[in-house]
Each structure stands twice: as C-alpha cells, then as structure tokens.
C-alpha cells in the first residue's frame, strides 16, 4: 500500500464519512458512479475507500460493470468537424475541381480517407474533374459520433462500423453497489496492531479493536552474537572428557621439536611422515635449543638398538634430526611431554585429553585442510 499524504488521508476520511452516514439511513448505494457525482466525490477515491471499508466488513460491495463506448481522438475530431468524406464533399465547388487542388485544400489524412469513403458512397464523379454526383449528403457518421459522445446508445451495426474505422473504443466502467457490512458502524474505528505503553497506561486498550495477526508468516529474526559451530562441538567434547574424569593437557604450543613430536614417540627418523611433504618444518626458529639430555640418550638407544623388550630399528639415530622444529603434526606430541613429566613427578593413574590445532603439509581438498583440530 502506498503511504498517503495527510491531505489525502483527510479526503479519504471525508469520503468514508459520507458513505457510512448515507448507509445509516439508506439500504443501498445502487451505483457508486452516480453517488460520487451526486455528492461531488472523486469516483476513483471512492472506489479505494469502498475497498478498504469492504476489507474490514464495514460495507459489503458488489461489483458492477458497464461497458460504454468512447470516441478516439480521430473520432472526436470528426464529431466536431464532420466525417472526412463529408468534409471532402463540402470542399468540392459546384463546378468541380482538379484532384490536386482538392488535395491541397484538405488535411492529408482527411483527404485520403474521405476521398476513398466518398467514392465508395458514390458521391463523387472523377472525370473530367472531381465533382459532386449527388446534390445532398447527410453526415450520419458525425451524428453517430455525437450520439456516442453524449452517452446515447446506437444500433449494433453502427457500433461495429465505427469500431472498424477506429473511431470508437470500448470503455469498461467499474463501480460498486454498496450495502451495510457485517461490521457496519457509522464511524470507522482504527484497528490497532500492537499493545503500546501509551494505550496501556491510558487504559484506552479496552476500547481498541485489534487487527488479526498473521500466524502463518515467520516472526522477526533474532539478533545477537554467535559462537562458532566447530567450537561449540569442541565445547561438548571437552565436557564429555571432563565428566569422565579426564584432565586437560596444556596444548598451547603449536611449535614443537621433532624430538617430542616424533622421536620420543618411537617414530623412526626415516619414516615417510617426517617428510617435507607431510610436515611443516620451521625456518625460524629452526632448532630446539634445549632437549632433556638423559632422556634423549635413552630414546637414541632404543631407536638404534632396542630395549625394554623391543628390537629397535637398527639405524643411526641423528641428533640434528631430533632438534628440527616443526608445526606439530599431532597433539600426541603434548602427550609425550605429559607422560615424561608424569614419570618425573611420580606415577599416579591419570587420564589426559586435549583438543587443539595440528598442522599437516598435505594437499588441500574438500575434506582435508592444512590446519585442523585433533583430540
């Protein structure tokens, strides 16, 4: 609905009042067009007001339709000036006239149409000059057009002829017949849409009529902040672990030495996973500066010769490889630190967990990233 200006609102209100008060004393407004005329109202405005009143059941409006004929621009000019064939006829002097001179006397289209029509009506002689064949002609077409202009009826055949010459076009007139509706009241009360502080505090809410609410539309979308979906899942996992009695490991170190990330976990130094196409190695800081020395010796021994029941790998373990810093490829690197610490502090039963980011230097595809979260 287009918003109305204040002036338009008061005009509409006036029309409303006229209609409603009229219906108070009359059964029906038979023809909205005539009613509008009688009361000096704009018919179009009246139509929209009636629609609105109908929507709220103040009135009941029935469609009425009238078909009327109306003159085209061409038709209008002929009604005033006469049909072109008569104009041509009248332009011919008694002694006759040459075709060229006749043409010059008249409007181009008037001549063209009129001459052809006059010839068709057998009103003209063309040789040796154009001259009148009959002494008198009646301008029926003009009369018919004037009839139409005055709103009078014509025979169907005449209507067809005029229509064919494109002198008249149909006009459908729509209006209403209006009666009282089920919610008729002499004056319209505005329907409220919401309970506001004003009507609440003033108590005027008791007198208000409320507009129906559309329950089939959706409500207003909520505003507010959001937590990240992946992190919401992480929170749930954390809760599960904590409920089961697991202790969270401190994983806030993305940079790890190869020693803790691989060697302490018995991953041999020539293992493919330590390749540059699976692991991110660091340029800065390139090497770990401290490693637990006596533990390192024990790790070296197991890799090279075995021990604690294992036969080992039988290769030369290199310290430089263990010193290389990496972006950790798994949080198990943290687990190995924790187990070492547990052994130093004195063993008690423990359950550890962590959920944090790890890094793998692999091809990225639709289910694999270079950085991801791991338990």
């Amino acid at each position, binding site marked *: 609905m287009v918003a109305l200006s204040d002036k338009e609102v008061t005009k509409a209100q006036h029309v409303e009042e006229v209609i409603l008060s009229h219906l108070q004393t009359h059964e029906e407004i038979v023809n909205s067009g005539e009613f509008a005329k009688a009361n000096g109202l704009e018919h179009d405005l009246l139509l929209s007001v009636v629609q609105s009143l109908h929507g709220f059941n103040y009135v009941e409006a029935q469609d009425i339709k009238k078909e009327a004929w109306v003159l085209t621009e061409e038709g209008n000019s002929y009604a005033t000036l006469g049909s072109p064939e008569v104009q041509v006829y009248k332009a011919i002097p008694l002694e006759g006239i040459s075709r060229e001179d006749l043409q010059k006397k008249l409007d181009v289209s008037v001549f063209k149409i009129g001459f052809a029509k006059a010839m068709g009506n057998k009103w003209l002689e063309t040789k040796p000059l154009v001259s009148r064949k009959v002494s008198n002609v009646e301008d029926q077409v003009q009369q018919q057009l004037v009839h139409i202009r005055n709103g009078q009826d014509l025979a169907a055949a005449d209507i067809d002829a005029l229509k064919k010459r494109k002198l008249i076009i149909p006009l459908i007139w729509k209006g209403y017949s209006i009666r009282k509706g089920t919610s008729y009241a002499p004056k319209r009360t505005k329907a409220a849409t919401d309970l506001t502080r004003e009507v609440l505090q003033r108590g005027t809410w008791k007198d208000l009529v409320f507009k129906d609410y559309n329950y089939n539309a959706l409500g207003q979308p909520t505003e507010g902040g*959001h937590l990240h979906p*992946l992190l919401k899942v992480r929170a749930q996992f954390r809760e599960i*672990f904590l409920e089961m*009695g697991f202790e*969270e490991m401190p994983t806030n170190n993305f940079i790890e*030495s190869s020693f803790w990330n691989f060697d302490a976990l018995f991953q041999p130094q020539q293992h493919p996973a330590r390749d540059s196409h699976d692991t*991110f190695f660091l340029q800065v*800081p390139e090497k770990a500066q*401290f490693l637990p020395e006596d533990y390192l010796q024990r790790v070296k021994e197991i890799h090279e010769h075995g021990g604690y029941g294992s036969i080992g790998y039988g290769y030369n373990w290199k310290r430089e490889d263990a010193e290389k810093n990496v972006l950790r490829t798994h949080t198990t690197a943290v687990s190995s630190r924790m187990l070492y610490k547990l052994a130093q502090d004195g063993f008690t*039963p423990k359950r550890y967990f962590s959920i944090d980011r790890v890094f793998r230097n692999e091809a990225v595809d639709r289910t694999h990233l270079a950085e991801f979260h791991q338990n």
Partner: protein
Amino acid sequence: MPTVNVGRDRLYEALQQHYSEEEFDELCFDFGIELDDVTTEKAIIRKEKHLQEDTLEDEEIIYKIEVPANRYDLLCLEGLARALRIFTGKQGSPTFSLSSSAIQKMYVQPETALIRPYVVCAILRGITFNQARYNSFIDLQDRLHQNLCRKRTLVAIGTHDLGTLEGPFTYEALPPSEIKFVPLKQRMEFTAEELMDFYKSDLKLKKYLHIIESSPVFPVLYDSKRTVLSLPPIINGAHSAITLQTKDVLIECTATDLTKAKIVLNTLVTMFSEYCEKKFEVEPVEVISSDGNATIYPDLHVRSLEVDLAYINGYIGVSLQSKQVIDLLNRMQLPSEATIGSNGKSKIKALIPPTRSDVLHPCDVVEDVAIAYGYNNILKTLPRSLTQGKQQPLNHFSDLLRSEIAMAGFTEVLTWILGSEAENFWLLNRKHKEHTGVIVGNPRGSDFEVNRVRASLLPGLLKTMGHNKDSPRPVKLFEVSDVVLLDNTKDVGAANERHLAALYCNTTSGFEVIHGLVDRIMEVVGISNAAVGDTKGYYIAPSNEPEFFKGRQANIILNGSCIGSFGIIHPQVLANFDILDPCSVVELNIEPFL
C-alpha cells in the same frame, strides 16, 4: 598408508573363495586392512591421464586395498592372498628354507663404501612366471622402492635372469666413464656418464640420478665375464633382463642401510618363492666383503619372542588360555607354542617369520592376538582407577570470555594460523616494526607465500571482513585463540599466547562500541577502571600506531602494563584488505588476566 592394486578375480582365485564386495570389505576390516576403492585398470590409466571415457564391460575389476605402512608382506597379491588364506584358516604359515646346493658368490670391492656400501643377494630357482606373476613381481619392487627404500635412496633392487649370467659376481664402484653397457630397453651401449645425461629427460628415472650423480665412483655389479648386471639405483642391464621364460632369478639389493636391505630381500624371496619348483625354498648367495668377511643371504632366520600370557590378557582385556592364543596367532602368521617362564608363569613363545619385520616388541604380538580375536568381540568395561577431571585454567577462562563476547552480540570466527608476510606486516601498515616471527621453511602452495605463523589475530579478522562485504551492517566479529611469538626462554624457541580480538564494521566506525566492549570485558573479569598511571586496575592511554587512525586509538593498560590496543583501522589498511566501510578493532593478550 600405501595402497596395493590387485585384480579382483585373481585375488578370489588365490583366496580359493568368492566373496561379495561387502563380504570382502568386512574381511579386510577384520584383518586390519581397508578396501579403499573398486575400479578398473583402464580407469586408473584414464585418471592418471585425466581422460574422460566410458567404462567398457569387460575391463578387469581392480581392488585398491590400503595396508599398514609397516607391513611389507602385504604389498603384493601373493602376500595379501597368503595372509588372508591363513587368517581364514585355509592354510598354515609356510616355512621358508635355504637350499644347500652350490652357492654363488658376490665379492664386494672396497670402493663401494664411498657411495653405497652394502649388497645382499638371493636366488629363486626353477621359478615359473606368467604375465600376471611377472607384473606382480615388478609392482612389488616398485612399491618397495617407493616406501621402505625411500625412493631408492636407501635400497635399490635389481633382478636378473641368472641363466644369462655366470658367477662369481662382483660389486664394485668405478668412475662413470669406465662403466659401459646396454641398459634395459635400449639397443646401444652407453657409458654411465652418458646415461646420466640420457636419463635427464626420462620422467621416471631422472628422479634417481641425484643419488649417485656427484660421486666420483658409481656402484656397478658385474658377473665373471664383465657383463654389467646393473647400475644401481638407476637401471639394470638389458643382457640379464627377465622374461616370462626365465627359470632362475638372481636378486641383488644394494643399499646404504643394511637393515632395510635385508628386509627388502626377505620380502621379495618370501613372496615369490611360492612359484619356485621347490615351494618356499630359496637358494642362498655368499657375500664376501672387502675385508674377507663372508655372510650368507638371505637371512631367513626365525626370531622367537616370549610374551607373558598375563600380559597378553591384561593388555587386551580378555581371559584366554594358551591354546586359544596359539590358535589366534597361527592365523596371523605367527606360529607359537606354550612355555613356562622361569618365574613359573605361562608364556607364549611366538616364532616371528622373516615376513614379519614389523614385529619389534611383545606389544606387536599382543596386537595380532587382538586382531585375530576381533576387536569388536572384546568386552567393553569401565576402567577401575579413579581420576578427577580438570580443565586447563587458560581454556576455561577463554570459554567464559567467549560466551560473554557472544552475548554482547559478536559473532565468533575461526581463522587460519598460517598466512603470508604481507598479511602479517605490510598490509597492516606495520612497516617499521621488527617483523620477525615464526617462519615455515617448506610452505605448501605454488607461490610459497603462506609461510608465516600469525603473531596477531588482526589479519584473520580483516580478511574475514574483506570477504564478507555484503553482510548486513553492523558486522561484529571476534576470535579468542592463540598466536605464536618467538621466546628464548622456551626449549623450542617460540611460545603460544592467547589473544582476544574483535572487529566492528558499519557505515560509522563504531569506535565507542569497541571501547565499550573493552570496558565490558574488564567488567566481567572483575577489573576496575583506574586513573591514568595507576598500577592496579585498567585505564586507556592514547597511542600512535600506524595500523590505526590518528587520534582514534589507544593502548589498554592493565596493572601498569600494556596488554593490547584498540582503534579505528587506518583507511590505508582497510584498502589493503579490500574493506569499503569503516572498522574498529581491539586485540589484547588475555593471559595476564589469570
């Protein structure tokens, strides 16, 4: 994990049983391998060549099976089928033996120590090849070269038709110009020097040239008639090329790692001796080193590993008798017997065949017992020890803060830790700051740009904003996550720091909104607003940093130290990140709060 391509019908024939795809899938799963893909030979080639063609009906179905990286005995159809036949009880484990017939000799010259010190050899007598077996033989060598041999750098395999050669053999290292032979697939003779050049354009072989290229001597194997067997690790000689008619095969593995060379040799002979006249019998070769020490290869000895029955049961969580454990291990190619240990406890003595170089420790035996038992058959129980749950204080605190900021109407984002140097410094106008930080040496990506580990959360937020220009205004983003800074006190030289950052973007800058967020954070953490200069509480001090707009930026001082800053982002920085509306951000370190 490596994948093995096996023809489905050949496999079922070798398994002596037909399976539906689902049944086979389950069998694989039970055994601990995985049916990764079902395709056809031609489809594989099409995929490699990136062609689009329709499948023809009569193409051989290929199973792609993923096997553990340390199971070299499962890398070919022969090994897989054998393992599965034993697993399903159709046969027992084979016993491998060395024949005692005339022993060939391989003499090692001292110069080989300069480039590739070790060689091990074996002979398969009376073998019968057909096309499929031959292909399998070549494939296994390829797979071993890729995996265990680390692309031929550690071990290189050469296989030869013994019928074309005459022992004794020598393993030497000579200057490349002195080595001359007709290599496989060629007709002309080349010197080794010429071959280095010739193979530079060979897609397959050029990858291996670097292994010996710069050495003054190249490794080479000769027979007694000075026929070149091979130029490891590059190419074999054409003279001794194996055909489908070959009956006797000489296998030589040259290496820089003797342990791995032995495993490679053992894998080849144990897999393919099943096609020899005397099944599972291998003819040994004596390798005599330059100092006169002689060793017989292959070393097919069976190790024994004793494991306590109680250890097995305790580890897995079952109560099996010795006999049951032995039955299970038999199905895993680890024949075993029951013994009593010196402490009177029941033990299982597992005999580890040469095919199982992956068994290093009793726990590996336990794993095989569990697999044969069936992981899904193990009864689930609750552990009996009592422990207390505990959160890391920093994580707990972070989660509380995150909730508060979300409640303040901000939307959480999760951004990349790896980024480019530009994003981390110049695009933020941080030109004159010391832009050192953690740098990755081997970044992924075609232009190697993504090589910085973030020291700030701002690039991530600004990038997110730049990529979401059409989002309804105002946009309010935040992240609570780690950045990494260099730290000399840490053993690795770097440490994580937990930061909080938030961004506001709208038609107006929202500077006071971000300021309000800072106040709100302090409020929920319980830090009171203090006067400028106070050493307790927090206050805001105007700052002058290049990433922010002049006159609309400040540092956040907590208990006398600066923990972060906030401000309107400088228009130049906004342009750098392709952002068209004004933004305000805050970033602070939250660890001082704890």
